[in-house]
């Protein structure tokens, strides 16, 4: 039981990290990015191939995976999303953009299917797959590393948004686009960077997940749905909300499966999701105008 709680927290932090990417993009563009799961899949594959070719470990892959996913997100926003976004900029609920992100999701999934086939792939990293003991509770080292990387990345993102010039410009744009333009902030550049960061966060999540996970072209789907639940649970646009939401979902999944079948834990997650929507639709932390 104790180990289940520990594993739930560790896994939940990584779910939380993927949700942080989603919530960041939503907070700034006010667009739900349906390609989030496909970005995670891209991060997983990038890590997988890096490890396959270099024979090193997935954490070293970050050096390649982070820039790869960052620029992937940056240019997807710049060339695919921006034109639609721009034509809808005065629309209160931009639907076209959501359809575009869905299109990107399908495109990336099918591209991966074409290139790599449908089979499940795993990597074997013996050095981190062994379980280690923390206060008598057991968890694989890879999950513990994943936890620390997730917390560190979220912390760095928080710091970046709070104190850097670009981070402040991102926050300003998320709060009032037009006023931000009047400050001399190029809002489209902000969107590119935000999309890049959101995608890179998925890339990082992919790298830390891979040692105890698997990758196949539609692997993102499961996490996509999980992410929406987490983000709604924590409050759209809130970074701490995304992390806490991730922890809660991780705990339900891990502790729940001690008592009921895994597929039933997913059911429980949806039921909680529905309850939240009925009782407190703004999520635990409220829908925030600020990360």
């Amino acid at each position, binding site marked *: 039981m104790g180990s289940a709680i520990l594993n739930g927290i560790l896994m939940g932090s990584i779910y939380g990290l993927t949700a942080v990417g989603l919530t960041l993009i939503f907070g700034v563009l006010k667009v739900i990015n349906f390609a989030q799961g496909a970005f995670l899949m891209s991060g997983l594959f990038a890590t997988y191939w890096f490890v396959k070719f270099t024979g090193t470990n997935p954490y070293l892959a970050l050096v390649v995976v982070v820039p790869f996913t960052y620029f992937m997100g940056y240019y997807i926003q710049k060339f695919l999303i921006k034109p639609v976004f721009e034509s809808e900029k005065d629309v209160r609920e931009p639907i076209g953009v959501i359809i575009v992100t869905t299109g990107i999701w399908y495109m990336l999934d099918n591209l991966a299917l074409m290139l790599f086939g449908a089979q499940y792939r795993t990597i074997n990293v013996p050095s981190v797959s062994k379980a280690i003991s923390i206060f008598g509770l057991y968890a694989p080292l890879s999950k513990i590393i994943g936890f620390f990387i997730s917390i560190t990345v979220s912390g760095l993102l928080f710091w970046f948004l709070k104190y850097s*010039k670009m981070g*402040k*410009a991102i*926050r*300003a744009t998320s*709060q*009032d686009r*037009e*006023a*931000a*333009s*009047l*400050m*001399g*902030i*190029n809002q489209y550049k902000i969107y590119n960077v935000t999309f890049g960061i959101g995608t890179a966060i998925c890339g990082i999540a992919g790298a830390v997940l891979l040692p105890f996970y698997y990758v196949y072209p539609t692997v993102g789907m499961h996490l996509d749905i999980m992410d929406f639940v987490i983000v709604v649970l924590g409050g759209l646009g809130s970074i701490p909300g995304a992390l806490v939401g991730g922890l809660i979902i991780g705990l339900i999944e891990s502790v729940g499966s001690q008592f009921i079948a895994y597929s039933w834990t997913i059911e429980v997650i949806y039921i909680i999701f529905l309850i939240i929507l009925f009782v407190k639709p703004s999520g635990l932390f409220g829908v*925030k*105008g*600020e990360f």
Partner: protein
Amino acid sequence: MSFLEIANIDVAYGDIEVLFDVSLYIEKGEVLSVIGANGAGKTTTLKTISGLLHPKKGSIIFNDKRIDNLSPEIIVERGIIHVPEGRRLFPFMSVEENLEMGSYNSRAYDDRFETMKKVFDLFPRLKERRRQLAGTLSGGERQMVAVGRGLMAKPEILMFDEPSLGLAPILVKDMMTAIKEIADKGTTIILVEQNIHASLNISNRAYVLEQGYVVNNGDAKQLLDDPSVQKAFLGI
């Protein structure tokens, strides 16, 4: 050629045309008022100068260069700063962060701490409130932040859209005094107001807009005494 020269612009929101053949100019160091009733096109004029809107016809020339096809952030770099109607502060950022965003452009960024001191000298109140979130300030304090944020950009031309809107009469007076002080230090100012008494009193010249047309212009004090202006605005 004047410092800023707008020549015969037509501006529309989609298919709805709201400015018709508007021309106006401003000289360096002037305080220029643009007055007109609600819906006359004052805000639209400012938005077109700052690049949020682009004219369908005509041109805007600043410092001998055309700017009417440029995006807002480039116009900010050139030195034209727009303090928008309704303050439009970043509500979840502190006063200090709001001011800092004002100095985002490359001409102003390196001097931001220096400029912020000057803003605090002009509005000591903001110094006391500098850590407070902008969304929690009073109306008068918000307007001070909006003006301060404009100053942070080191403007060549500073444009105010209804700075007195929603302020108590005593605060309107303070605001106009502050704007006059900014002008006296050498910043060129375009002031959009419905409160024509307050604005014309501190202006050199003024334009009167009516339903998208410039219907009158001239010396500010003379316009204030003009019976047609009084009739239109003061209901006398």
